[in-house]
């Protein structure tokens, strides 16, 4: 069920952070929680993370892989599909664009400078 809005509508913060945490390679659910917290200080609960992952899987942006060989206890690994990577890049571009807006630059000195 590919999402029509992909690349156009803004992503929810939870989804964005889940996708972002998977950008460097596959992770299990708890890894996503840790990564999101390390990257942005955002604490996502297990419900949010797995709920998002399931939705993303439905949308075809994330693939559920095998169990983590290093740490089977943590469960299955999730990785980005190419559609997912495109959606993430689109969102990143959108945010960058936003940060270049004249108004934003005036609000936050130092932001948006190339």
């Amino acid at each position: 069920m590919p999402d029509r809005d992909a690349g156009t509508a803004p992503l929810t913060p939870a989804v964005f952070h889940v996708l972002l945490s998977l950008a460097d390679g596959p992770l299990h659910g708890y890894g996503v929680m840790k990564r999101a917290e390390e990257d942005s200080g955002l604490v996502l609960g297990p419900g949010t993370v797995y709920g998002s992952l399931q939705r993303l899987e439905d949308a075809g942006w994330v693939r559920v892989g095998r169990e983590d060989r290093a740490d089977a206890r943590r469960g299955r690994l999730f990785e980005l599909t190419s559609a997912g990577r495109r959606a993430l890049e689109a969102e990143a571009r959108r945010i960058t664009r936003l940060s270049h807006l004249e108004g934003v630059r005036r609000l936050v000195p130092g932001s948006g400078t190339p």
Partner: protein
Amino acid sequence: MSPRGLGTRLASALVVPSVVLYRRLLLRFPARLRRRFGGEMAGAFHALLEERVARRGLRGFLSAWGVALRDLSHPLPGRPVQDRARRTGGVDAGRRSAGGRGLRASLEDLGFAWGSVRRDPRFTALLVAVLALGLALNAAVFSVVNAYLLRPLPYPEADRIVEVRPVTDVSWTQVADIFERAVSWDLDVFTLVGEEGPEMVRGSWVTPDFLDVYGVRASLGRTFRPEEADPGAALVAMISERLWRERFGAAPDIVGRSFSAYTSDRPDHAESFRIVGVIPADFWHVNAYTDVLSPIRVERAVYVGRLRPDVPLPAAEAALTELARSTTAQLPADFQVRLTPLQDAYTASVRPTLTVLQGAVLLVLLIACSNAIVLLLVRSARRRRELGMRQALGATALRVGRQLAWEGLILSGAAGVLGLAAAALLLDLTRAGLQARLGRAIPGGLEALSLDPSVVMAAAGACAVIGLSFGLVPALLFLVGRGVPLGTGDARGRGEGRSPRRLRAALVASEVALSTALLAGAGLMVRSAVHLHRMPLGFDATGVIHGSIGLRHASYPDPSMRVLLYESLLDRVRGMGDVEAAAMASSTPFSGIIRPDALEGERVRDASDGRARGTVTSVGAGFFSALGIPLLRGRDFGPDDTEGSEPVAIVSRGLGERLWPGRDPLGARVRTLPGTDGGMAMGDASPGPWRTVVGIVDDITRDLGNGSDGQLWLAYPQQAGYWMSLVARRRPGASSASVVTSVERALAELDPDIPFSATSELERNVAAARAPTRLVAWLLGGFAGFALVLSLLGLYGVVAYAARQRRRDIAIRIALGADVDSVTGLFLRNGLLVVALGVGTGVIGGLFLGQALAGQLRGIPPGDPFTHGAVAAGLLLTAACAVWLPARQASRAAPMTVLRED
């Protein structure tokens, strides 16, 4: 144990239960997600918990749950992209709230509640701390009550074991129709002799069924057989596990071995006892005389029995009374045997103390709760906007009420956990001291005093009730006061209905009332403790050590031989560097209550009756100076007062005045009369010999039970017993232990087979006698102080809040030129009305409490006007301050600052 370490340990212990709980909460998520990822979600939560607990202990634990709860109460992740409805969380929350049902909605409310609890951490901390303290006190005191009064004695079907009073002539062998088994015993001191050295242990002569009544089996060997109680049977014994380990090195072949001991049964020579069994270490008996048990070989009146299941208690009482009448002639017409459950009989002396303490801590908890409700009410008034908003967005009244209930439960739950932890710590620290001060061994041993499941259940129940009432009261008020248009500036203090104000005032008034009553009770107890402390003893206990010396009849058959030994020992002891003075006495003050004897003074010329009661003690020369009892007139006993010389006595001043009113006791004669107490023959059946009074000493306080009844002192060489106490005052700087060692050495030089036993310090005995009253005074004082602080806090909070609500009002008045004092006065009046109401009710409550305490008061009437008056005045004064301060503050605020607010 640092609090942090405790928190971390608590948190680690809670990790696994948390995950189990979380798994159940997963039901909140759609089945598809749960089926696919449920296990992994629980795993992730587990990992989160472990990591956070490792990093931040209890705080980490709570934050992990915070994450999970937010997650659970929050929307399920929808489509990956944002939609309009989802961005306006508040509205959406309201809509979902309105439609929410069952567990899901309830959890959502839990999430809201959690959020609001966290939003105001200082408020939450104060509330939880106050409640936790109240709960800790209750849990600790309830544990004590539980250990003594509620938990059955450590025997199977303990409720069927009853004590027979008064003791009759009915033998334990005659009652098989009434009791399944019946026992009797005779306490004795067994002096074990042999290679291991002499050792005095406490033991009992018991009927063969003794252990069976209590449902106890031997841990090694067996219990007694009926034929072993036959008069001609060989002596057998069971020994305690302690004795087996300490004296016999836990020898595995102990059963069948023998030991020799002197007893008061056959004091003339050591007898050999064959050991048939070992008493289990956990056997507990109402008296501690269980190191050696041996079958009693004479008829004995029944003391304790296990009721037959088919015989109800009244029937048993009637049957025993009948038996007693047929056994003993001429019993009074109203004679009636009473059977009391053994536990009630054993704990009768501590029951009043414990009841008072439990009552006091319940009052404290009640005060703490009303305090918390007052604080919550004050806050809920501030939160009207938030709750109103939720309601306007579609949340039903039920949902808002449920959120408040959840808040209450979170608060009381946290307080409960903290309170139980604090109570456990408190019990650990005070267990032994508490038992000593209550003066009764805890049934089942010291470890039996703990937070057992029933205490934890009771605490959990209390928490649930408290938590729900926290939620319900503000919820009701909020719903009742709903008619006020919402969002129209409640924060500025308008639109608050009258009922919340009244409820707050009523709660604070009742807090003040309860505190007043509690303080009055505490005041009475403190004053009786002071009275006991100041009560003149009549002797100087400082540095006085005493111990018992028991002589064997066989070695010292002749009184003069006994006197010779005692005097030789005294000579040696007096010559020691660390002893200032020493003397012999048949008993010492404050070492057990001695019943006063009936005494008769010889009529001097006229026919005054001349009878009185006084305690009789035999003492040797130097006793009065050793204890610092002033000799008022006449002479002390001396070396010439011997067995053959004229019998002499010394009377205390008070006794002399009662025996010979208005006459000089010196030269008069006095004798003891046969005891007539309680219908039981005590001591000799005929009067003692006439003795001439040769001296008068001051009265002393012999024990706190009798007060100063007056004492008759006899010269001990004229009736030298086998059991005497040696009293020695140590020199300043010398230690009691060194004196004891010296006496032991001196005694060993005279006769190596005599132990110097039951040594103790007189000062300690006096302190121990005062301890129960002191304990209650201290505890009640502490509880009352805590209650006072709480009610002042409540009072302050309410007045401050009322003042704050009306600060615009005040500011305008003051800006328009009103006098600061008149504005202060406005609040003062309202506040003082509440205080006066509280104190007035409290004084009445205090008078009732005084009546309840009457049995424990010493030297002060329960309605003592000074105590009650002082408490009332003190409370009025401090409470007035608690009212005046915030009122003053409010009227002092700069008008323009206030008007610019909001």
